[in-house]
Protein backbone atom coordinates (compact mmCIF):
# COMPACT_ATOMS: atom_id res chain seq x y z
CA UNK A 1 0.00 0.00 0.00
CA UNK A 2 1.55 3.28 -1.09
CA UNK A 3 1.08 6.20 1.32
CA UNK A 4 0.77 9.62 -0.16
CA UNK A 5 2.72 12.54 1.36
CA UNK A 6 -0.55 13.99 2.55
CA UNK A 7 -1.36 10.82 4.49
CA UNK A 8 2.11 10.75 6.05
CA UNK A 9 1.75 14.35 7.23
CA UNK A 10 -1.67 13.57 8.70
CA UNK A 11 -0.29 10.57 10.60
CA UNK A 12 2.62 12.60 12.02
CA UNK A 13 0.25 15.39 12.97
CA UNK A 14 -2.03 12.92 14.73
CA UNK A 15 0.83 11.31 16.63
CA UNK A 16 2.20 14.75 17.65
CA UNK A 17 -1.19 15.85 18.94
CA UNK A 18 -1.58 12.64 20.96
CA UNK A 19 1.90 13.09 22.50
CA UNK A 20 1.20 16.74 23.38
CA UNK A 21 -2.15 15.82 24.94
CA UNK A 22 -0.48 13.10 27.04
CA UNK A 23 2.25 15.49 28.26
CA UNK A 24 -0.20 18.30 29.10
CA UNK A 25 -2.55 15.88 30.87
CA UNK A 26 0.33 14.48 32.93
CA UNK A 27 1.52 17.95 33.97
CA UNK A 28 -2.00 19.00 34.91
CA UNK A 29 -2.56 15.76 36.81
CA UNK A 30 0.71 16.08 38.77
CA UNK A 31 -0.01 19.74 39.63
CA UNK A 32 -3.59 18.94 40.47
CA UNK A 33 -2.53 16.11 42.74
CA UNK A 34 -0.13 18.39 44.67
CA UNK A 35 -2.79 21.04 44.92
CA UNK A 36 -5.42 18.49 46.06
CA UNK A 37 -3.12 17.39 48.89
CA UNK A 38 -2.67 21.01 50.01
CA UNK A 39 -6.41 21.56 49.69
CA UNK A 40 -7.23 18.51 51.79
CA UNK A 41 -4.76 19.39 54.55
CA UNK A 42 -5.93 23.00 54.81
CA UNK A 43 -9.54 21.86 54.66
CA UNK A 44 -9.01 19.44 57.57
CA UNK A 45 -7.21 22.04 59.68
CA UNK A 46 -9.92 24.64 59.15
CA UNK A 47 -12.75 22.23 59.77
CA UNK A 48 -11.10 21.23 63.03
CA UNK A 49 -11.60 24.83 64.17
CA UNK A 50 -15.17 24.94 62.79
CA UNK A 51 -14.27 27.33 60.01
CA UNK A 52 -16.65 27.03 57.06
CA UNK A 53 -14.01 26.73 54.34
CA UNK A 54 -15.30 26.73 50.77
CA UNK A 55 -12.53 27.14 48.23
CA UNK A 56 -8.83 27.57 47.68
CA UNK A 57 -7.38 29.17 44.55
CA UNK A 58 -3.87 29.87 43.29
CA UNK A 59 -3.19 33.05 41.34
CA UNK A 60 0.47 33.69 40.52
CA UNK A 61 2.35 33.91 43.81
CA UNK A 62 -0.86 34.29 45.79
CA UNK A 63 -3.13 31.76 47.44
CA UNK A 64 -6.73 32.82 47.91
CA UNK A 65 -8.76 31.04 50.56
CA UNK A 66 -12.47 31.60 50.63
CA UNK A 67 -14.63 30.87 53.66
CA UNK A 68 -18.05 31.73 55.08
CA UNK A 69 -18.21 33.89 58.17
CA UNK A 70 -21.22 34.20 60.50
CA UNK A 71 -22.02 37.83 61.40
CA UNK A 72 -22.52 37.35 65.14
CA UNK A 73 -18.86 37.67 65.93
CA UNK A 74 -16.59 39.86 67.97
CA UNK A 75 -13.65 41.65 66.44
CA UNK A 76 -11.22 39.20 68.09
CA UNK A 77 -13.10 36.27 66.53
CA UNK A 78 -12.81 37.41 62.97
CA UNK A 79 -9.18 38.50 63.27
CA UNK A 80 -8.13 35.25 64.94
CA UNK A 81 -9.97 33.31 62.22
CA UNK A 82 -8.04 35.22 59.53
CA UNK A 83 -4.75 34.68 61.36
CA UNK A 84 -5.47 30.95 61.73
CA UNK A 85 -6.41 30.53 58.06
CA UNK A 86 -3.29 32.42 56.99
CA UNK A 87 -1.06 30.34 59.27
CA UNK A 88 -2.62 27.10 58.02
CA UNK A 89 -2.02 28.18 54.42
CA UNK A 90 1.62 29.12 55.08
CA UNK A 91 2.23 25.78 56.77
CA UNK A 92 0.96 23.78 53.81
CA UNK A 93 1.59 25.75 50.63
CA UNK A 94 4.68 25.54 48.41
CA UNK A 95 7.51 28.01 48.96
CA UNK A 96 6.77 29.90 45.75
CA UNK A 97 3.76 31.56 47.36
CA UNK A 98 4.41 35.03 48.80
CA UNK A 99 0.93 36.31 49.65
CA UNK A 100 -2.13 34.89 51.33
CA UNK A 101 -5.55 36.37 50.70
CA UNK A 102 -8.46 35.39 52.92
CA UNK A 103 -11.76 36.11 51.24
CA UNK A 104 -14.41 36.41 53.88
CA UNK A 105 -18.00 35.89 52.74
CA UNK A 106 -20.32 37.09 55.50
CA UNK A 107 -23.62 35.32 55.81
CA UNK A 108 -25.48 38.60 55.14
CA UNK A 109 -23.89 38.83 51.69
CA UNK A 110 -21.13 41.32 52.54
CA UNK A 111 -17.61 40.44 51.39
CA UNK A 112 -14.16 41.49 52.55
CA UNK A 113 -10.66 40.47 51.55
CA UNK A 114 -7.75 40.35 54.00
CA UNK A 115 -4.27 40.08 52.52
CA UNK A 116 -0.92 39.49 54.20
CA UNK A 117 2.64 38.67 53.16
CA UNK A 118 3.85 35.17 54.03
CA UNK A 119 6.90 36.59 55.83
CA UNK A 120 4.68 38.71 58.10
CA UNK A 121 2.44 35.74 58.89
CA UNK A 122 5.44 33.61 59.84
CA UNK A 123 6.83 36.41 62.03
CA UNK A 124 3.46 36.78 63.75
CA UNK A 125 3.02 33.06 64.40
CA UNK A 126 6.58 32.79 65.73
CA UNK A 127 5.88 35.88 67.88
CA UNK A 128 8.74 37.77 66.27
CA UNK A 129 6.47 40.76 65.66
CA UNK A 130 3.76 42.17 67.90
CA UNK A 131 0.07 41.56 67.30
CA UNK A 132 -0.39 45.29 66.74
CA UNK A 133 2.16 45.48 63.98
CA UNK A 134 0.74 42.36 62.34
CA UNK A 135 -2.75 43.87 62.35
CA UNK A 136 -1.37 46.99 60.73
CA UNK A 137 0.29 44.88 58.04
CA UNK A 138 -2.96 43.14 57.05
CA UNK A 139 -4.52 44.87 54.07
CA UNK A 140 -8.29 44.75 54.25
CA UNK A 141 -10.30 45.52 51.17
CA UNK A 142 -14.09 45.66 51.23
CA UNK A 143 -15.68 44.07 48.16
CA UNK A 144 -19.22 45.21 48.94
CA UNK A 145 -20.78 48.38 50.38
CA UNK A 146 -21.15 47.11 53.91
CA UNK A 147 -24.16 47.31 56.21
CA UNK A 148 -26.35 50.39 56.11
CA UNK A 149 -25.51 52.62 59.05
Amino acid at each position, binding site marked *: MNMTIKNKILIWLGVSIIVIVIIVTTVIWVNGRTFRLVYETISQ*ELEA*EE*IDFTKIKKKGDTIIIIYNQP*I*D*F*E*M*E*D*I*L*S*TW*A*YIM*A*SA*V*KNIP*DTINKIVVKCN*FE*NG*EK*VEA*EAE*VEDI*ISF*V*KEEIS*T*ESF*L*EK*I*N*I*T*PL*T*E*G*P*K*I
Partner: protein
Amino acid sequence: MSRLKLLIISIVILGGLIFPVLFVSAGTSITPEHSKVKQGESVDLIFNFSYSTAEKGRWMCVTGFTIYEGEKEINRYGDKRESCKKGSYLCMNKEDITFSLPTDNLKVGVHTFSVKIYVENRTPGMGQPYWVKQFGDECYFIDTASFSVEVLAAAKKPEKKTEEEEKSVLEPRLEKLPPKKDFKERISKTKNIERKLFWEKLKEIVLGEEAPKIGQEKTAYMFIQPYLTDFELFSLSGEMAKWDKYFKDLGYKVTWLEWNTESLKRAFTDPNIGAFDYYGHNGLDTEGSWLSKRIFKLFRRTPAIFGNDADNLRNLIFNYKCEEYEKTMSLEEARRKAQQDIECLGLDFANIHACYSANNDSLMEFFVKTSGTFRGHRGPYHGFWPLNTIKTKE
Protein backbone atom coordinates in the same frame (compact mmCIF):
# COMPACT_ATOMS: atom_id res chain seq x y z
CA MET B 1 84.48 11.03 25.64
CA SER B 2 86.06 12.34 28.78
CA ARG B 3 86.36 15.77 27.15
CA LEU B 4 82.70 15.77 26.32
CA LYS B 5 81.83 14.86 29.94
CA LEU B 6 84.03 17.66 31.15
CA LEU B 7 82.34 20.11 28.75
CA ILE B 8 78.89 19.09 29.91
CA ILE B 9 79.84 19.35 33.59
CA SER B 10 81.41 22.75 32.95
CA ILE B 11 78.32 24.02 31.15
CA VAL B 12 76.10 22.80 33.97
CA ILE B 13 78.25 24.40 36.68
CA LEU B 14 78.66 27.64 34.74
CA GLY B 15 74.96 27.73 33.88
CA GLY B 16 74.12 27.15 37.53
CA LEU B 17 76.27 30.12 38.47
CA ILE B 18 75.19 32.47 35.67
CA PHE B 19 71.46 31.68 35.65
CA PRO B 20 70.63 33.13 39.09
CA VAL B 21 72.65 36.20 38.27
CA LEU B 22 70.69 36.75 35.08
CA PHE B 23 67.17 35.97 36.24
CA VAL B 24 66.94 36.55 39.99
CA SER B 25 67.24 39.98 41.53
CA ALA B 26 70.33 40.25 43.56
CA GLY B 27 69.71 40.36 47.27
CA THR B 28 65.96 39.67 47.12
CA SER B 29 64.08 36.46 46.55
CA ILE B 30 60.35 35.87 46.53
CA THR B 31 58.93 32.43 47.13
CA PRO B 32 56.98 31.11 45.32
CA GLU B 33 57.82 32.91 42.14
CA HIS B 34 54.71 31.58 40.49
CA SER B 35 51.57 30.51 42.24
CA LYS B 36 47.97 29.60 41.43
CA VAL B 37 45.05 30.72 43.55
CA LYS B 38 41.31 30.92 43.27
CA GLN B 39 39.86 34.39 43.00
CA GLY B 40 39.18 35.81 46.44
CA GLU B 41 41.84 33.76 48.17
CA SER B 42 45.15 35.38 49.09
CA VAL B 43 48.66 34.43 47.99
CA ASP B 44 51.20 33.89 50.75
CA LEU B 45 54.60 35.12 49.64
CA ILE B 46 57.91 34.93 51.49
CA PHE B 47 60.28 37.81 50.87
CA ASN B 48 63.88 37.08 51.71
CA PHE B 49 66.35 39.97 51.75
CA SER B 50 70.00 39.11 51.90
CA TYR B 51 71.83 42.39 51.66
CA SER B 52 75.34 42.36 53.07
CA THR B 53 76.49 44.93 55.55
CA ALA B 54 78.24 47.93 54.09
CA GLU B 55 80.75 48.02 56.90
CA LYS B 56 81.00 46.91 60.47
CA GLY B 57 78.07 47.92 62.56
CA ARG B 58 76.18 49.41 59.64
CA TRP B 59 73.25 47.62 58.17
CA MET B 60 70.94 47.88 55.26
CA CYS B 61 67.53 48.21 56.79
CA VAL B 62 64.58 47.20 54.63
CA THR B 63 61.91 49.78 55.27
CA GLY B 64 59.31 48.51 52.88
CA PHE B 65 58.40 47.38 49.40
CA THR B 66 55.83 48.30 46.86
CA ILE B 67 54.18 45.86 44.46
CA TYR B 68 53.29 46.99 40.94
CA GLU B 69 51.43 45.43 38.10
CA GLY B 70 52.76 47.33 35.12
CA GLU B 71 52.73 50.95 36.27
CA LYS B 72 49.87 50.50 38.70
CA GLU B 73 50.61 50.18 42.38
CA ILE B 74 48.81 47.14 43.74
CA ASN B 75 49.95 46.89 47.33
CA ARG B 76 52.67 47.98 49.69
CA TYR B 77 54.34 46.81 52.85
CA GLY B 78 55.95 48.91 55.54
CA ASP B 79 57.49 51.87 53.75
CA LYS B 80 57.39 54.07 56.83
CA ARG B 81 60.57 54.66 58.71
CA GLU B 82 58.79 54.47 62.05
CA SER B 83 58.09 50.82 61.45
CA CYS B 84 61.83 50.15 61.24
CA LYS B 85 62.29 51.28 64.81
CA LYS B 86 59.73 48.90 66.12
CA GLY B 87 60.31 45.97 63.82
CA SER B 88 63.95 45.26 64.22
CA TYR B 89 63.63 42.01 62.24
CA LEU B 90 63.31 44.11 59.13
CA CYS B 91 66.80 45.43 59.71
CA MET B 92 68.40 42.25 60.88
CA ASN B 93 68.02 40.50 57.55
CA LYS B 94 67.75 37.28 59.51
CA GLU B 95 64.09 36.57 59.12
CA ASP B 96 61.92 36.27 56.09
CA ILE B 97 58.95 38.53 55.72
CA THR B 98 55.70 36.75 54.98
CA PHE B 99 53.32 38.83 52.96
CA SER B 100 49.76 37.99 52.05
CA LEU B 101 48.52 39.43 48.75
CA PRO B 102 44.73 39.53 48.42
CA THR B 103 43.27 38.66 45.02
CA ASP B 104 39.72 40.01 45.45
CA ASN B 105 40.33 42.78 42.95
CA LEU B 106 42.33 40.72 40.46
CA LYS B 107 40.75 39.40 37.32
CA VAL B 108 41.00 35.75 36.32
CA GLY B 109 44.28 35.12 34.42
CA VAL B 110 48.02 35.40 34.88
CA HIS B 111 49.30 38.54 36.60
CA THR B 112 52.98 39.47 36.69
CA PHE B 113 54.07 41.79 39.46
CA SER B 114 57.24 43.76 40.00
CA VAL B 115 58.43 44.73 43.43
CA LYS B 116 60.54 47.71 44.42
CA ILE B 117 62.39 47.41 47.70
CA TYR B 118 63.33 50.41 49.81
CA VAL B 119 66.04 50.50 52.48
CA GLU B 120 67.77 52.76 54.95
CA ASN B 121 71.24 52.55 56.36
CA ARG B 122 71.19 51.97 60.09
CA THR B 123 73.45 51.14 62.94
CA PRO B 124 72.67 49.68 66.35
CA GLY B 125 72.18 52.41 68.96
CA MET B 126 74.01 52.49 72.27
CA GLY B 127 71.91 50.31 74.53
CA GLN B 128 68.80 51.08 72.59
CA PRO B 129 66.43 48.27 71.80
CA TYR B 130 65.97 49.34 68.22
CA TRP B 131 68.01 50.32 65.25
CA VAL B 132 68.90 53.92 64.83
CA LYS B 133 68.88 55.57 61.48
CA GLN B 134 72.33 56.63 60.42
CA PHE B 135 72.24 58.30 57.02
CA GLY B 136 69.75 60.74 55.67
CA ASP B 137 66.05 60.94 56.24
CA GLU B 138 64.69 59.32 53.15
CA CYS B 139 64.19 55.67 52.47
CA TYR B 140 65.72 54.91 49.13
CA PHE B 141 65.12 52.41 46.40
CA ILE B 142 67.68 49.66 46.24
CA ASP B 143 66.39 46.62 44.45
CA THR B 144 63.65 45.03 42.35
CA ALA B 145 62.12 41.59 42.20
CA SER B 146 59.21 39.98 40.47
CA PHE B 147 56.68 37.22 40.84
CA SER B 148 53.57 36.04 39.07
CA VAL B 149 50.20 34.78 40.16
CA GLU B 150 47.64 32.87 38.16
CA VAL B 151 44.17 33.74 39.39
CA LEU B 152 41.65 30.99 38.77
CA ALA B 153 37.90 31.45 38.68
CA ALA B 154 36.40 31.02 42.12
CA ALA B 155 33.87 28.23 42.62
CA LYS B 156 30.41 29.78 42.35
CA LYS B 157 29.00 30.63 45.72
CA PRO B 158 25.52 29.27 46.19
CA GLU B 159 23.05 32.11 45.80
CA LYS B 160 21.08 33.24 48.81
CA LYS B 161 17.81 32.16 47.28
CA THR B 162 19.14 28.66 46.69
CA GLU B 163 20.22 28.47 50.32
CA GLU B 164 16.79 29.55 51.43
CA GLU B 165 15.19 27.11 49.08
CA GLU B 166 17.38 24.30 50.39
CA LYS B 167 16.57 25.33 53.93
CA SER B 168 12.88 25.43 53.20
CA VAL B 169 13.01 21.96 51.68
CA LEU B 170 14.58 20.71 54.88
CA GLU B 171 12.62 22.86 57.29
CA PRO B 172 9.00 23.77 56.64
CA ARG B 173 8.28 27.50 56.94
CA LEU B 174 5.95 26.78 59.83
CA GLU B 175 6.50 23.58 61.70
CA LYS B 176 3.24 23.49 63.58
CA LEU B 177 -0.03 25.35 63.53
CA PRO B 178 -1.04 26.87 66.86
CA PRO B 179 -4.74 26.48 67.75
CA LYS B 180 -7.06 29.36 66.88
CA LYS B 181 -7.63 30.19 70.55
CA ASP B 182 -3.95 31.11 70.87
CA PHE B 183 -4.38 33.75 68.18
CA LYS B 184 -7.59 34.98 69.81
CA GLU B 185 -5.83 35.29 73.15
CA ARG B 186 -3.05 37.37 71.63
CA ILE B 187 -5.45 39.55 69.64
CA SER B 188 -7.69 40.10 72.70
CA LYS B 189 -4.76 41.76 74.44
CA THR B 190 -4.67 44.42 71.72
CA LYS B 191 -6.51 47.54 72.80
CA ASN B 192 -8.83 49.38 70.40
CA ILE B 193 -8.47 46.81 67.67
CA GLU B 194 -10.88 48.57 65.36
CA ARG B 195 -8.62 51.60 65.31
CA LYS B 196 -5.63 49.53 64.25
CA LEU B 197 -7.22 48.21 61.08
CA PHE B 198 -6.52 50.45 58.17
CA TRP B 199 -8.53 49.26 55.24
CA GLU B 200 -6.45 49.32 52.11
CA LYS B 201 -8.98 51.02 49.84
CA LEU B 202 -10.06 53.51 52.46
CA LYS B 203 -6.52 54.67 53.02
CA GLU B 204 -6.49 56.41 49.69
CA ILE B 205 -9.86 58.08 49.96
CA VAL B 206 -9.63 61.06 52.26
CA LEU B 207 -12.03 63.67 51.03
CA GLY B 208 -10.61 67.13 50.57
CA GLU B 209 -7.20 68.66 50.89
CA GLU B 210 -4.92 68.01 53.82
CA ALA B 211 -5.54 70.69 56.41
CA PRO B 212 -2.52 72.53 57.82
CA LYS B 213 -1.24 71.30 61.15
CA ILE B 214 -2.68 73.22 64.04
CA GLY B 215 -0.37 75.11 66.28
CA GLN B 216 -2.38 74.90 69.49
CA GLU B 217 -3.62 71.98 71.56
CA LYS B 218 -7.01 70.91 70.25
CA THR B 219 -9.05 67.79 70.74
CA ALA B 220 -10.91 65.71 68.19
CA TYR B 221 -13.85 63.98 69.89
CA MET B 222 -14.77 60.74 68.13
CA PHE B 223 -18.20 59.39 69.08
CA ILE B 224 -19.44 55.85 68.57
CA GLN B 225 -23.12 55.20 68.83
CA PRO B 226 -24.01 52.60 71.49
CA TYR B 227 -25.79 49.38 70.50
CA LEU B 228 -24.02 49.06 67.18
CA THR B 229 -23.82 45.39 66.27
CA ASP B 230 -20.40 43.77 66.13
CA PHE B 231 -20.70 43.58 62.38
CA GLU B 232 -21.59 47.27 62.09
CA LEU B 233 -18.67 48.16 64.32
CA PHE B 234 -16.40 45.94 62.25
CA SER B 235 -17.63 47.54 59.04
CA LEU B 236 -16.80 51.01 60.39
CA SER B 237 -13.35 50.06 61.67
CA GLY B 238 -11.60 51.06 58.46
CA GLU B 239 -12.97 54.60 58.63
CA MET B 240 -12.27 54.77 62.36
CA ALA B 241 -8.61 53.87 61.82
CA LYS B 242 -8.29 56.35 58.99
CA TRP B 243 -9.73 59.33 60.82
CA ASP B 244 -7.95 58.48 64.05
CA LYS B 245 -4.68 58.73 62.13
CA TYR B 246 -5.81 61.79 60.16
CA PHE B 247 -6.55 63.88 63.24
CA LYS B 248 -3.46 62.69 65.07
CA ASP B 249 -1.37 63.64 62.05
CA LEU B 250 -2.91 67.11 62.13
CA GLY B 251 -1.77 67.51 65.71
CA TYR B 252 -5.08 66.90 67.48
CA LYS B 253 -5.46 64.99 70.70
CA VAL B 254 -7.93 62.25 69.75
CA THR B 255 -10.53 61.11 72.32
CA TRP B 256 -12.90 58.22 71.60
CA LEU B 257 -16.21 58.20 73.49
CA GLU B 258 -19.51 56.37 73.41
CA TRP B 259 -22.47 58.62 72.66
CA ASN B 260 -24.19 59.35 75.98
CA THR B 261 -25.10 62.34 78.16
CA GLU B 262 -21.87 62.35 80.13
CA SER B 263 -19.61 62.09 77.13
CA LEU B 264 -21.53 64.76 75.19
CA LYS B 265 -21.30 67.07 78.15
CA ARG B 266 -17.58 66.44 78.43
CA ALA B 267 -16.93 67.08 74.74
CA PHE B 268 -19.06 70.15 74.18
CA THR B 269 -18.05 71.95 77.33
CA ASP B 270 -14.39 71.45 76.49
CA PRO B 271 -13.06 74.79 75.21
CA ASN B 272 -10.36 72.92 73.25
CA ILE B 273 -12.77 70.91 71.09
CA GLY B 274 -11.63 71.31 67.49
CA ALA B 275 -13.20 68.40 65.64
CA PHE B 276 -16.22 66.15 65.97
CA ASP B 277 -16.54 62.73 64.36
CA TYR B 278 -19.57 60.47 64.65
CA TYR B 279 -19.98 56.78 63.80
CA GLY B 280 -23.49 55.47 64.04
CA HIS B 281 -27.02 55.55 62.76
CA ASN B 282 -28.99 58.57 61.71
CA GLY B 283 -31.67 57.18 64.00
CA LEU B 284 -34.32 59.68 63.04
CA ASP B 285 -37.66 58.05 62.49
CA THR B 286 -41.14 59.34 62.54
CA GLU B 287 -44.29 58.07 64.07
CA GLY B 288 -47.31 57.59 61.92
CA SER B 289 -48.87 55.29 59.45
CA TRP B 290 -47.00 52.94 57.19
CA LEU B 291 -47.64 55.34 54.31
CA SER B 292 -46.50 58.48 56.15
CA LYS B 293 -43.32 56.66 57.20
CA ARG B 294 -42.61 55.74 53.59
CA ILE B 295 -43.27 59.31 52.46
CA PHE B 296 -41.00 60.63 55.23
CA LYS B 297 -38.21 58.29 54.24
CA LEU B 298 -38.59 59.17 50.59
CA PHE B 299 -38.63 62.91 50.84
CA ARG B 300 -37.30 64.18 54.14
CA ARG B 301 -34.33 62.11 55.08
CA THR B 302 -33.17 64.76 57.52
CA PRO B 303 -29.54 64.81 58.63
CA ALA B 304 -29.38 63.61 62.22
CA ILE B 305 -27.18 61.97 64.82
CA PHE B 306 -28.66 59.08 66.78
CA GLY B 307 -32.14 60.50 66.37
CA ASN B 308 -31.19 64.14 66.96
CA ASP B 309 -31.45 66.61 64.12
CA ALA B 310 -29.60 69.95 64.26
CA ASP B 311 -32.31 71.64 66.38
CA ASN B 312 -32.40 68.82 68.91
CA LEU B 313 -28.64 68.87 69.15
CA ARG B 314 -28.77 72.63 69.80
CA ASN B 315 -31.17 72.09 72.68
CA LEU B 316 -29.07 69.29 74.16
CA ILE B 317 -25.87 71.24 74.02
CA PHE B 318 -27.55 74.43 75.21
CA ASN B 319 -28.41 72.64 78.45
CA TYR B 320 -24.89 71.33 78.93
CA LYS B 321 -23.33 74.68 78.28
CA CYS B 322 -25.80 76.48 80.59
CA GLU B 323 -24.94 74.11 83.42
CA GLU B 324 -21.28 74.75 82.89
CA TYR B 325 -21.57 78.56 82.65
CA GLU B 326 -23.81 78.73 85.71
CA LYS B 327 -20.87 77.67 87.84
CA THR B 328 -19.17 81.00 87.22
CA MET B 329 -21.97 83.43 86.26
CA SER B 330 -25.61 84.24 86.76
CA LEU B 331 -28.30 82.08 85.16
CA GLU B 332 -29.37 84.82 82.82
CA GLU B 333 -25.85 85.51 81.69
CA ALA B 334 -25.17 81.78 81.36
CA ARG B 335 -28.24 81.30 79.17
CA ARG B 336 -27.29 84.26 76.99
CA LYS B 337 -23.75 82.97 76.52
CA ALA B 338 -24.91 79.40 75.87
CA GLN B 339 -27.42 80.71 73.33
CA GLN B 340 -24.61 82.50 71.52
CA ASP B 341 -22.48 79.35 71.50
CA ILE B 342 -25.07 77.03 70.08
CA GLU B 343 -25.75 79.16 67.03
CA CYS B 344 -22.62 77.54 65.73
CA LEU B 345 -20.14 75.43 67.67
CA GLY B 346 -17.28 76.81 65.57
CA LEU B 347 -15.35 73.59 65.03
CA ASP B 348 -12.61 73.13 62.43
CA PHE B 349 -13.91 69.74 61.33
CA ALA B 350 -17.09 67.69 61.61
CA ASN B 351 -17.37 64.21 60.07
CA ILE B 352 -20.74 62.50 60.38
CA HIS B 353 -20.61 58.82 59.47
CA ALA B 354 -24.36 58.32 59.29
CA CYS B 355 -26.98 58.03 56.59
CA TYR B 356 -28.21 61.29 55.00
CA SER B 357 -25.87 63.46 57.09
CA ALA B 358 -25.07 65.67 54.11
CA ASN B 359 -28.55 65.74 52.59
CA ASN B 360 -28.74 69.38 53.61
CA ASP B 361 -26.46 71.88 55.38
CA SER B 362 -28.17 71.85 58.77
CA LEU B 363 -25.47 69.85 60.56
CA MET B 364 -22.70 71.77 58.83
CA GLU B 365 -24.23 75.09 59.91
CA PHE B 366 -24.42 73.87 63.49
CA PHE B 367 -20.98 72.28 63.86
CA VAL B 368 -18.33 74.07 61.82
CA LYS B 369 -17.03 77.62 61.70
CA THR B 370 -16.71 79.65 58.51
CA SER B 371 -14.00 78.00 56.38
CA GLY B 372 -14.36 74.86 58.53
CA THR B 373 -14.68 71.47 56.81
CA PHE B 374 -17.77 69.30 56.97
CA ARG B 375 -17.84 65.71 55.71
CA GLY B 376 -21.01 63.72 55.55
CA HIS B 377 -22.96 61.33 53.38
CA ARG B 378 -25.61 62.16 50.86
CA GLY B 379 -28.05 59.27 50.80
CA PRO B 380 -27.78 56.04 52.75
CA TYR B 381 -24.32 55.39 54.21
CA HIS B 382 -22.82 51.91 54.16
CA GLY B 383 -20.10 51.09 56.66
CA PHE B 384 -17.44 49.70 54.33
CA TRP B 385 -17.13 52.85 52.28
CA PRO B 386 -15.93 56.39 52.99
CA LEU B 387 -18.14 59.47 53.19
CA ASN B 388 -19.14 60.88 49.84
CA THR B 389 -19.55 64.59 50.56
CA ILE B 390 -17.21 67.34 51.64
CA LYS B 391 -18.21 70.94 52.16
CA THR B 392 -16.37 74.04 53.27
CA LYS B 393 -18.57 76.50 55.11
CA GLU B 394 -18.61 79.89 53.42
